């Protein structure tokens, strides 16, 4: 029988999700969405996927929440749009959505006869790569092409965001407005929390090889700390044309690609790690990835350049 906690958690998630969808004000919708994200990471813990819970909390609701809050602050002027009207189209859409949900629920209720899983084959050959965490194994050993392509997607999305700046401001500084007053409390926070945060981020990346954690989650924490410092005004927002920023952006994918190509010369196949050296190589990849992901996520939140900057 499903435990009471699970049932309440699911009901809570659905309630908060519905509330966020139908909230009158966009600002409250987004705040509720962040709560929804945290509840979801609880659900991931219940589904015994701690890695994913960390990712959901860090990226799914953390950084995305920051992004949406920043957006709603900018859009405050156009917020008074009415809630969805009760027109016939909406009712029809509702009916179709329930039909889709019903068909999916029907599938969920009838689990496949023979449970099918790749877990045994993952565990059986995980030992060769020296990694302890199976999810990290899948990400960086078995399906490393996915991870590489996904990194390229992240970098390309950033180029796309930057491309939305007007011609004149290309290479300029993104307009993250630091907190207006020279307020002591936020600066105090920005001075004390980041060291802990950075330590937690690095710990998360480091432990990722054997325990749940990894480059993505660590990178997200680092990004959060950097944004906190920038908002408090302690650190200047780097111009998008700064050489250091761009190098930091691409150091992750470049190292990943280099090691992949190295695999061709040493073992004859792309993205294959030579015997015995798998773990150090993967750690090297993850280290640079953490830095790149951190910088990229922060730059996504900060947005396209909006101020003149002549280096």
């Amino acid at each position, binding site marked *: 029988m499903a435990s009471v906690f699970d049932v309440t958690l699911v009901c809570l998630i659905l309630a908060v999700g519905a509330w966020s969808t139908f909230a009158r004000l966009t600002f409250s919708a987004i705040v509720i969405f962040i709560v929804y994200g945290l509840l979801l990471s609880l659900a991931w813990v219940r589904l015994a996927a701690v890695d994913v819970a960390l990712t959901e909390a860090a990226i799914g609701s953390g950084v995305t929440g920051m992004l949406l809050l920043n957006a709603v602050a900018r859009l405050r002027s156009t917020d008074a749009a009415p809630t969805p009207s009760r027109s016939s189209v909406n009712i029809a859409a509702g009916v179709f959505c329930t039909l889709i949900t019903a068909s999916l629920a029907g599938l969920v209720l009838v689990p496949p006869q023979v449970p099918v899983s790749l877990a045994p084959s993952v565990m059986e050959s995980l030992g060769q790569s020296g990694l302890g965490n199976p999810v990290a194994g899948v990400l960086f050993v078995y399906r490393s092409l996915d991870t590489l392509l996904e990194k390229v997607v992240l970098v390309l999305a950033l180029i796309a965001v930057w491309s939305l700046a007007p011609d004149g401001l290309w290479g300029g500084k993104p307009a993250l407005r630091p907190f207006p007053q020279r307020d002591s409390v*936020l600066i105090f926070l920005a001075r*004390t929390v980041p060291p802990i945060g950075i330590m937690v981020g690095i710990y998360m990346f480091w432990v990722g090889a054997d325990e749940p954690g990894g480059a993505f989650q660590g990178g997200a924490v680092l990004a959060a700390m950097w944004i906190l410092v920038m908002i408090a005004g302690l650190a200047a927002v780097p111009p998008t044309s700064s050489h250091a920023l761009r190098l930091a952006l691409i150091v992750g994918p470049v190292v990943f690609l280099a090691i992949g190509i190295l695999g061709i010369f040493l073992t004859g196949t792309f993205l294959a790690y030579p015997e015995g050296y798998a773990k150090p190589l993967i750690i090297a990849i993850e280290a640079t990835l953490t830095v790149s992901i951190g910088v990229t996520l922060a730059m996504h939140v900060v947005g396209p350049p909006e101020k003149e900057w002549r280096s």
Partner: protein
Amino acid sequence: MTLILDVFTIAAVTVGVFFFVIAALAFLRFPDGLTRLHALTKVDNVGLGLIVFGLLPQAGSVMGALKLICVWLLVQFSGAIVTQLIARSTRREGQEA
């Protein structure tokens, strides 16, 4: 021995939850933003403290217990600062409106 610890944990956690319930009630009852904020932070910190305190014996290892305490400290710390910021901004909005 474990029985005593379990009883202790259950007691502490229930009291903690009780504090949270009060905080929620206060949040709904109080008229304006500042008083709600006041109620929330104070009561939640105490509630969380009690729950963490109650769970300490359940934590597997000493490291686990330390992590729990770190979590509590971090929540205390950031909660207080964030409350300050929200209070200031609601007061400033109060003056402008």
